[in-house]
């Protein structure tokens, strides 16, 4: 017990043994941290863990579905039921974005979200789409959507009765990207008998649209890109650990450890009036503090 206490003392408290500088902040220890960071970067890159396990983030369709219904319930709306055809449309939309290299509701060839929904053989009365990319957590995606009025309108639209999701990994603009596609719909029912169709014009994609009339839509196969994106299946939610969580926690723990060492070293050095050659603890602390704040933003992605 005493040995452990001495070691911790040696690690954090400046004294004669450690040349009046906490051992955790000595150049040799700092070199070890760098080597460990390099090793971890190398291991993550070489083993390609995120691709092998099929996930680079902690986003699952199950969790997104659960969160979507949670926010609807909170707002006194009925739950949406999960629709596999909408999920297929969402997956095909994500695949299309990867294969044609774009990040938008409308494709460069003029394809609309509704094309994907119809191609998945889903005849809709109302339909909508929400997109997100590069988030680390499902909750982050939902928070961002709820903070955007157009996405929020989609999530809380009472006209929808069904929803489908796709969470797909792939390369977009040369970067490893995780896309989340959420497709809403209400299957065509009573409006099928309408005789005067309303042809949808170009409008914001979050807005609900009415289909012109019931029609048979030809399902054409979506071209398979050379770099096959990996779909993050529902099963990922039951995996025993999550890479995103591990890497985020690892960063937080390391930054916390270093900040603790700086604070303790600074405290004892100022208390004992120790003067020494070395970096400024205040500056290190500020740098690490800003990085820690930056970590919060790194867990967030973009939505359209």
């Amino acid at each position, binding site marked *: 017990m005493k040995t452990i206490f001495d070691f911790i003392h040696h690690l954090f408290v400046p004294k004669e043994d450690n040349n009046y500088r906490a051992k955790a902040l000595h150049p040799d220890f*700092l070199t070890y941290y760098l080597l460990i*960071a390099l090793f971890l970067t190398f291991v993550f890159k070489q083993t390609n863990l995120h691709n092998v396990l099929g996930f680079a983030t902690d986003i699952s369709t199950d969790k997104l579905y659960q969160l979507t219904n949670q926010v609807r319930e909170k707002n006194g709306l009925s739950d949406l039921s999960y629709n596999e055809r909408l999920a297929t449309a969402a997956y095909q939309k994500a695949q299309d974005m990867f294969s044609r290299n774009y990040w938008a509701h409308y494709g460069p060839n003029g394809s609309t979200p509704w094309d994907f929904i119809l191609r998945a053989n889903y005849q809709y009365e109302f339909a909508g789409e929400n997109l997100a990319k590069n988030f680390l957590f499902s909750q982050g995606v939902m928070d961002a959507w709820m903070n955007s009025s157009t996405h929020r309108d989609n999530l809380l639209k009472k006209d929808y009765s069904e929803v489908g999701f796709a969470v797909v990994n792939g390369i977009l603009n040369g970067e490893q990207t995780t896309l989340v596609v959420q497709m809403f719909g209400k299957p065509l029912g009573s409006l099928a008998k309408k005789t005067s169709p309303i042809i949808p014009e170009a409008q914001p994609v979050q807005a609900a649209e009415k289909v012109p009339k019931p029609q048979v839509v030809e399902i054409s196969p979506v071209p398979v890109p050379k770099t096959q994106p990996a779909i993050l299946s529902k099963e990922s939610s039951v995996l025993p650990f999550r890479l995103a969580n591990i890497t985020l926690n690892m*960063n937080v723990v390391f930054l916390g450890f270093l900040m603790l060492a700086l604070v303790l070293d*600074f*405290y004892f050095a*100022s208390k004992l009036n120790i003067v020494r050659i*070395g970096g*400024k603890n205040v500056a290190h602390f500020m740098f690490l503090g*800003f990085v820690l704040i930056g970590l919060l*933003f790194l867990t967030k992605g973009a939505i359209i």
Partner: protein
Amino acid sequence: MKHIVIYLKKEVKKNLLDYLFLFTAGVFFVVSLNMFKGERMLEFVVLLGFASFYIVWGIYHHILEDTLHLKTVIEYILIAFTVVFLLKILILP
């Protein structure tokens, strides 16, 4: 705790401009990350920029204080690049 406050006041007062400069860069770093949310390459460039600035700031600060030493420079480099590599796992897996 009293010692920390006294030392901090003394240190910041003595190098107010330097710390203000570092603080501004930090705010700029956080704002940039918020602006480029979801753009991983840009996020990494912003991080690399902030880490590089931090090293340059350290050298500049110690030159002004006339306390520049190789060990000090290495300390700034090691801390900055450890953070860069650790966050790289998160930004560019």
